[in-house]
């Protein structure tokens, strides 16, 4: 569903690559968690997956479509929620969603149904009529999540989606991720909350200094890291060794 093949990226004229020869294969109906220390290259990877940054080398396939060769077709299959919810502040939430609906070509009936669903779910009935300027961080995130799911994407990519959400909303988001998986789609997200990764993800990848250092199911990870008791221990030992 989502394959990343030997992708590298170096910013400008820097010496060290932000992402270094990364390969990943993520299957249909899978929730994949991407963890790693600050500055490890998670956001950079996600930006390449969503077409924001062109990779220096390597290829990315989204549901079989090459993102570099056929970007428009590939992007149609992606829903993206960025870490910093920067969106047009002077539009209202509803106007933003209409814009998103138009650019993804979502038919009227689906648009109406999905907006209605998430608006009720996130309790944003009143806020969607306000300008985004007046939104809190969490409200912006909810708006972006609604926008990302409007066209029912095959691959849903989220960058640290849980920061800023209240407990109830983050529960709802996690449920939503499970539902998305149940419908045969893929979810790819980065996070710093290890408990969430542990409970939610089918597989986890640990990235450090741009390189994928460990990948597998929770059990596999623990095994590889000499039977440590928790994901936190695995994370500490793995990222420590690398340094």
């Amino acid at each position, binding site marked *: 569903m989502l394959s990343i093949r030997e992708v590298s990226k170096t910013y400008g004229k820097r010496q060290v690559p932000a992402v270094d020869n990364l390969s990943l294969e993520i299957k249909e109906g899978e929730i994949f968690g991407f963890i790693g220390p600050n500055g490890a290259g998670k956001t950079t990877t996600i930006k390449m997956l969503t077409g924001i940054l062109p990779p220096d080398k390597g290829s990315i396939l989204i549901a079989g479509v090459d993102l570099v060769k056929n970007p428009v077709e590939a992007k149609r299959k992606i829903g993206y929620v960025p870490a910093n919810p920067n969106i047009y502040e002077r539009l209202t939430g509803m106007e933003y969603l209409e814009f998103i609906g138009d650019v993804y*070509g979502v038919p009227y009936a689906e648009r109406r149904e999905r907006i209605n669903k998430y608006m009720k779910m996130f309790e944003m009935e009143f806020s969607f009529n306000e300008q985004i300027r007046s939104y809190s961080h969490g409200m912006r995130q909810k708006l972006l999540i609604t926008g990302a799911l409007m066209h029912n994407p095959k691959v849903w990519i989220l960058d640290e989606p849980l920061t800023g959400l209240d407990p109830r909303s983050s529960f709802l988001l996690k449920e939503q991720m499970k539902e998305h998986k149940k419908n045969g789609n893929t979810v790819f997200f980065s996070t710093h909350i290890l408990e969430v990764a542990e409970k939610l993800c089918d597989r986890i990848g640990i990235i450090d200094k741009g390189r994928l250092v460990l990948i597998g199911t929770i059990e596999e990870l623990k095994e590889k890291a000499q039977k440590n008791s928790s994901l936190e221990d695995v994370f500490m030992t793995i990222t420590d060794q690398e340094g």
Partner: protein
Amino acid sequence: MNKFKKLLFFRLKNMLGIPQLKYMMRNNEKSRLYLAGFILLYLIVASSLLVPYFLILNFAYEATEIMGDTTLFISLLASSGQILLLFSGILYSFNSLYTSRDSEFLLSLPFPRGYLFLTSYVIAYIMNFFTSLLLLLPGLVVYLYKAGDAVVFVKGLVLSILYPIIPVSLSMIIVIPIMHILNRFKHKDIVATVAGFVLMVLFIASNMVFSSRMQEGQEAEFFAKLFSERLDLPKLSKGLVPYSAFMKELMVNERTGGIASFVILIALSAVVVLVTYLLCKRLYESLLQRAGHAGKKEKAVDVAVIKVGNPRLAFCKKELKLILRSPVYALNCLLNVVLGPLAVISIFKLSTDSKEALALDALVEAFRDKPYILLYIFYGFVMLLTSLNLVPSTSFSREGQHFWLTKVIPVPYVEQVKGRIYASVIFYLCCCVTMTVLLQFFIRLKLVYFLSVIVLILASVLQITYMSLAVDLIKPKLHWSTEAEAVKRNFNAVIGMLLSLVLVVVNALPVVLSIKVNADFGIALSLAISIAIAIFLRNVLMRLVNERYELINV
């Protein structure tokens, strides 16, 4: 005190964009060149403004000579400068208080209450000090040159330190309560935009009425008459700016009267500063704390009214909305929509009751048998104002931190750019359609020439749109924190305007060159060439889109 100095310098540096400049200087050769070009451009613009200012000062001095009392010139300089500084002070205060984004951050810093207001106050003073130098120095130079009085010149320099204090204080006292009121409005952005446009129209209209009453070669007499009969200058300057009398005393009186005036001025300034501080400090802080509160009643979303459209139109709609909703964008980008029709009306209509109107009518009549000249007056007039538009030349820059969205959505970049083209053309048309209708009313071109001029204008609008979008696409300014930075401190805006003027000249060139042979042929040629240029620029833009869009990183 040390803390105060630090806060002051910190804010001042940020406001002047010094960290950015330093970064550019340190960075590389290319950005240093870029910077030098920018400074050069500003110098050119500034000097082109200074020349007419010197001329006006010169006429004013001669007028006071005719009236027989050249110290009137000093009064005039002192009082009119104070009024102008009040306006610029309002602008600066408004800019630093209303559009700055650091206020929330500053509120959180451990400074004594009052420091925030005091630093804003000092910054406004410093900005106005430079403005006042620009206003006063030319006047002093003229006086020095004409009256040969060096003492006045030196005293004027000393006075310039005190000079901005009172207008700045008054502008603070005016702006802060206005902002309190503005804050209460439901749609405060719209109120601010409309108010800005009204002020602009008033300013420009008064300027135009004023200059349309002046006659070539008799400016000094005009001023003399204006000063002595219509305005009664001595009385007026005392009435409007009462303390300017002390300034004049200080400047021209060489005995104790001068010193006494100086002392009085210092005392007056001190009192005004104290009063302003006490009045505004609390008000300003409560304003900061309350900024951004919307008192609007909330309404639930009704999903039944969702609209559906295509991607290109969605982009166009988004552009229109964003520009019209932001006062900064609307006032800067759409200046010409207001200015254009106003210019036509004031030049052709307001002057009908004066002699110049007849001259203008006569001029139009004189060229009746040379319609190609009328056609180019028509075209030049429309395009000169139309090209002031900043919508396309800041189109990508205005995306700023939101740029990521344009890369994530499954809309080919070319389609997105077409949406931007639509939005720009719509705003251009707002300006040139009204201007064209009005001008045709006054000039009355024959149908075939009128149609030609329409085609020419449309082709030029497309040319300018493609060219400006290309300029902004090559090097968009995406890192900004206030909307003002995206349009005002954007090099692309200036380049876009200059290149637009170049295009206008190029379009008109065939006719100028073929006047001797056959002007109608020249017009036809010029139509063909302008259309060809439009098509060429469109291809250039589309090629650039495919090459450059991908490379823009956010």
